[in-house]
């Protein structure tokens, strides 16, 4: 289960995720992002409520990062220990801005 709460205002988008970002839920996030990222220069993911992220979820984040590299910046806030560990293990910590 994944809850996606998004707010887009003045070129600033905030995605608050709750639950698990895995194979079954990643496509929903991918679809939401595809609909919202146009004209966005600042993208923020709030992972305070995210319990787990799988490689399918990482793929969506990577795609978002690549999009934002062209049109602005992207950061991740409030990542929990489990999620942070996945970022570290996969080397995503090196390419993502994790605050």
């Amino acid at each position, binding site marked *: 289960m994944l809850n996606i709460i998004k707010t887009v205002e003045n070129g600033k988008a905030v995605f608050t995720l709750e639950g698990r970002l895995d*194979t079954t839920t990643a496509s929903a996030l991918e679809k939401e992002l595809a609909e919202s990222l146009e004209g966005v220069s600042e993208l923020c993911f709030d992972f305070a409520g995210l319990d*787990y992220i799988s*490689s399918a979820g*990482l*793929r969506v984040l*990577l795609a978002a990062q690549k999009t934002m590299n062209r049109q602005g910046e992207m950061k991740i806030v409030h990542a929990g220990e489990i999620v942070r560990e996945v970022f570290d293990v*996969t080397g995503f910590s*090196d390419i993502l801005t994790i605050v």
Partner: protein
Amino acid sequence: MDRLRKLRSSMAANIIGAILALLAIFGLIVSVFGFVSFTDAFKNEYTVSTYHMADTATTLVNGDHLDAYLRGEETEEYERTRSYLDIYCKRMNVSIIYVIEVDRSDYGRFVSVFNHVNNAVDDTSYTAWELGHERETTNDEYRQKYQAIYEQGSPYETVYRIRTNDGLHSHITTMVPVKNSSGDAAGILCIQRPVREIYDARRPYLRSIVFSTLLLSLLASVFAVGYLRVHLVTPIRRVSDEAARFAREGTKGEDLEGISPYKELSGLAASIDKMETDTLRYMENLSTAAAEKERIGFELSLASRIQAASIPSEFPAFPERKDFDIYGVMDPARDVGGDFYNFFLVDDDHLALAIGDVSGKGIPASLFMMVTNIILTDRTRMGGGPGEILDYVNREICAHNSAEMFVTIWLGILELSTGRLTASNAGHEYPALMRAGGAFALYKDKHAFVIGGMEGVRYREYELKLSPGDKLFVYTDGVPEATAADETMFGTERMLAALNEDAQAAPERLLRNVRRAVDGFVQGTEQFDDLTMLCIEYRGGSARTDEPTREE
């Protein structure tokens, strides 16, 4: 009874029955109305004609002299009138003609003046009253009629006796006043006639009504039967036969459209035609889909075999080598998966070990996995350290990565003579290392970014010295992230515990222990991730010399 039930369930029989019942009711109503109005008309005719007869008869009687006749005077005139009335009675075919004077105090008595009987007319047995014969008025009906004639100036009164129960035939009695010269009623002249003609005429009339109703009913039923058969029963039977045939044979039959000019039936027929066409198309689609599914299933099972054959899966893999023992398993969650492991001798002294996990699952992941494994294997065989090999693989993958997928890879090259392991980790899980005689623990190696995620990433290497008896266990996230029904994950703690259950065992046994622990943990909950493990036990450079045919 069976026949009756059959008739009841037959639409034609029911409709015909209904028509017959309606016609019978109709015939009955017509008969009753006809009977009543016929009787009325006949009565009217009788009433009027008898009145005229009576009225004519009064002209024969001198109203001024009635009292004189009773007194025994005017005998000559009385006798003459008598003989006229006698002739009248016989000629006019009346049963009785009589003249009376009624007691006008209460009309309860009267006295006879003239009385002529013709018993032959109606087979009666009357006896003529004498002049001056007195009688009581027989009933109130007569009394009222007498009064009407005397007091209200009624031109005539009529009494019908139809179907009398006193043995007399039906007859009509008409009374008219016998007037004196001043115009008042001095007496009453009555005529009694039989009315048998009413019955004589009524009977054939009734008969013709019944007969024509029956004939009409018969014609209507014959017509209804024919009509229903041609326009209703036959088309419906054809539709129902066609539906039954279709259900039996499942092939397209003749078109039913135009079976009937009526839209209810032609609509039904069109629906059956459409149902047949649709059903056949649906069945065809279904069998096409089934065939397609079978084909895909066959292709997948073939793909699954190809994928399984693309990695070393025969154990022991190097029966002639005593310097190391290796074992690996790959269990895709579906037919094909995105995980892989690989190992091969780059040269006699260098063993390459690799494990990888493609993001995503199923067919796309499996294609990506095959490509990655091939590039990785080819590049590794060309020689060089894991870092530069991964640099190359990343470059190649990034150049052709349209789906934005990535793969985590751990690659190690073990120098068998010395136990020196050079490795590089591209975003893959931490390896688990066991020093000889000790326990497995995670080895927190340096991580770089996943392969295929970004161009230009540098993959650094690290070195690890293995001693004889050391073991290295690498795995994909399908192991720690195996999930139980309550969504808790297996985790690296449980994985290490499973490894250390019997840490001294051979690699094959260790992998079985982990697998058993994972299965016990998830308790049959369906797993969505591929599960892959690889374990090597390093036995040391000296062990290699066991190989008798080997030339160093």
